[in-house]
């Protein structure tokens, strides 16, 4: 028996373990291991993950000084580093845009960089140097607050699987072309874009997250899409565009995603989808199990149609979450078109797998109550329906409860939970 390791029992562990230990240390501690012993002198220098976060240099009151010391630190680490660097991440709100960043990216592009995340100080948009587009092995790219312009010779990132652009200034054509030139792209996230008209062609795309002021979104070639999350903000410009649009947005957006499993829509998403007439296209989402729609305008018949369409086209729907979003529900108290409900929600439709329903910001107006009635009547395996009213108003809540109690429930196990703030 006895020691399998000598008295110094850590220095001779395999490099992969040392790397694993060092990369789980804050970078300063990792670099400081260089003074431990002669064997440790350069162990840190071959780390393949370099993460510079908020704590990578000690802070003091002089903001400028901190910034300079971060730049110095990162430059030194890169210069003393040897070997490939696979992950490089800067998330530091003290670091301002500076010319050294260009040098760092150039250095990384020569060292097999695979994952690059740059998140600098708020307020400055630095221009990404063109050497970024030479990083052939890039699999993950996340950029915050910068300006991106792919050179004309750019043919795409052949290995890129995940792209996240947050508040990035880039021309719409460039975005389209970047997306379509990354054949392996699986995950795409675009946030805080202004008035973007987007066409997405990404045959391997599985996860899509869009947030911003989008004029137009067309998912042209995304057959493998599994998760979709969209938050659409509105500007006057976009509102106008909506009015004039003659496209069928529902089809353009959700027409080519048969494998969708989860759908999340915020703000004006349902409104966007409601524009245009989808006709009676029989799109079925067999894998769609979870739908979350926020700020749905119940008073808009078209939006309700969209919601219904989604629900009835998803035979395996398990979870549904809807929050009501109109600010002026009072204007919708004129008698709803009861035919609408009779026509659009045939009583023989069944939501055979719906188990959980969560409704928030409910005001108790007839459209909402009809919707709840519909859900309760068509969900034979429903387990929980939770309802949260929008305003704490005793009378209103009483009215809602009285009506709720009347509704027939298809599921004997259904629990209705009325949650009050």
């Amino acid at each position, binding site marked *: 028996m006895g020691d*399998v390791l000598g008295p110094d029992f850590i220095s001779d562990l395999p490099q992969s373990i040392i790397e694993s230990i060092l990369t789980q240390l804050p970078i300063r501690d990792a670099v400081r291991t260089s003074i431990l012993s002669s064997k440790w002198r350069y162990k840190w220098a071959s780390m393949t993950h370099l993460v510079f976060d908020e704590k990578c240099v000690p802070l003091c009151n002089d903001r400028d000084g901190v910034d300079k010391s971060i730049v110095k630190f990162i430059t030194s680490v890169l210069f003393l580093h040897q070997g490939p660097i696979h992950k490089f991440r800067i998330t530091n709100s003290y670091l301002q845009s500076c010319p050294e960043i260009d040098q760092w990216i150039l250095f990384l592009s020569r060292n097999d960089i695979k994952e690059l995340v740059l998140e600098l100080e708020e307020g400055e948009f630095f221009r990404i140097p063109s050497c970024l587009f030479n990083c052939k092995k890039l699999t993950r790219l996340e950029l915050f607050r910068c300006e991106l312009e792919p050179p004309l010779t750019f043919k795409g990132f052949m290995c890129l699987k995940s792209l996240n652009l947050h508040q990035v200034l880039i021309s719409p054509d460039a975005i389209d072309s970047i997306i379509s030139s990354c054949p392996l792209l699986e995950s795409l996230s675009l946030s805080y874009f202004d008035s973007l008209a987007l066409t997405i062609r990404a045959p391997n795309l599985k996860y899509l997250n869009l947030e911003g002021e989008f004029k137009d979104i067309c998912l042209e070639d995304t057959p493998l899409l599994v998760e979709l999350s969209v938050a659409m903000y509105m500007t006057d410009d976009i509102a106008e565009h909506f009015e004039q649009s003659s496209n069928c947005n529902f089809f353009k957006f959700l027409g080519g995603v048969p494998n969708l499993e989860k759908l999340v829509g915020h703000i004006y998403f349902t409104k966007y989808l409601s524009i245009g007439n989808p006709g009676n296209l029989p799109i079925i989402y067999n894998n769609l199990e979870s739908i979350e729609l926020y700020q749905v305008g119940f008073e808009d018949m078209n939006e309700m149609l969209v919601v219904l369409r989604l629900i009835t086209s998803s035979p395996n729907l398990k979870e549904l979450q809807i929050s009501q979003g109109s600010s002026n529900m009072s204007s919708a108290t004129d008698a709803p078109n009861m035919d609408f409900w009779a026509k659009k929600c045939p009583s023989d439709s069944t939501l055979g797998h719906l188990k959980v329903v969560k409704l928030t910001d409910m005001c108790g107006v007839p459209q909402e109550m009809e919707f709840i009635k519909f859900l309760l009547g068509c969900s034979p395996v429903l387990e929980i329906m939770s309802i949260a009213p929008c305003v704490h108003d005793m009378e209103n809540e009483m009215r809602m409860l009285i009506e709720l109690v009347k509704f027939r429930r298809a599921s004997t196990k259904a629990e209705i939970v009325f949650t009050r703030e």
Partner: protein
Amino acid sequence: MQPYHHVSNHESHHMKSYIWLKTADGAIQQVDEDVAMFCPMICREVLQTGMGASKLHAISLPQRVNPAILGLILDYCRFHQVPGRSNKEHKTFDEKFIRMDTKKLCELTSAADSLQLKPLVDLTSRALARIIEGKTAEQIRETFHLPDDLTEEEKLEPLRNITDDPRIRLLNRLYAKKREELKERKKLKNVEVEEDEPKDERSVDDLLLFINGANGDMKGTRVNKNKKKNRRRKDHAKDPSLQNSNENDSKELSPLPSACHHDNFDSSFVASPSKNSRTQDLPAVNFSPKLEFIDGDLDDDLDPAMKEELDREVEDFARRLNSDWEARMQEILCEGQDRRLVPISTSTNGSTHLHTGLHRR
């Protein structure tokens, strides 16, 4: 009939299979199949070579796995291979599991790695990282029994590059002054006679020669002269402002773009190794002269009063610097930031030559 009776009893009650494992010391253990197969390496051995089914054909484990450690690993496998446990339960078990002394933790990491049990490797290396995090070098060395076999210079090197501090450079200069002064006391008189110019009008070329080590005769003498001039200048430059050395540094360095950039370096840390070896001479404990370096901070004509002051400064600074390396580094890293101005590739001798107006006495 007894043996058969036993066997059938055994079979009907247990219906379990076992794997036999042999550690490097020859000891053989019998382990539940489910538990053992949780290790990829064992699993592969069983499936590919069919070993392990009996005591005679026990699977030989890698040398890094001794019986005690094997016991621990099997405990881990035994818990984790049971399906249906929640993440929280796994986490709680893991937290308790890794509570052991550091030596054992290292052994466990190594053993888990040789058995390719990645979840356990991740767990143990994370634990080791937590042990290292936030500790001083001394503490880490103690915990892991690391030999303290780097010289002081070597310890400074990588950190020097990362955290340049004019105060360290000052200390170097002060030490150097002291040493050279001791060495060259003989030449004092000669030098006194020679030096008389108020201004140093060396050109960039001279500086270059100086730095690179002059060879030619004429140039050599010239360099020497300059060197001495410089020394004097430096001394004067430093004396009145020993307290505010940093400001001086900045004043001296900033109007010096041409001299500094003769190497065409912009980034401050790109200190050539020669630079390092020059200024590295920071004997934390002893004053033994180390290198013959061409740092211009040699002063050989101090008057006694200034010399004393200098000595005091040196001692004091040395003491402070040595007292707690780690704490100092922290301090330096934090405070020294605002002093950072100019490439340290600047030759220290070059930094003083603009200090006009300061005369010898």
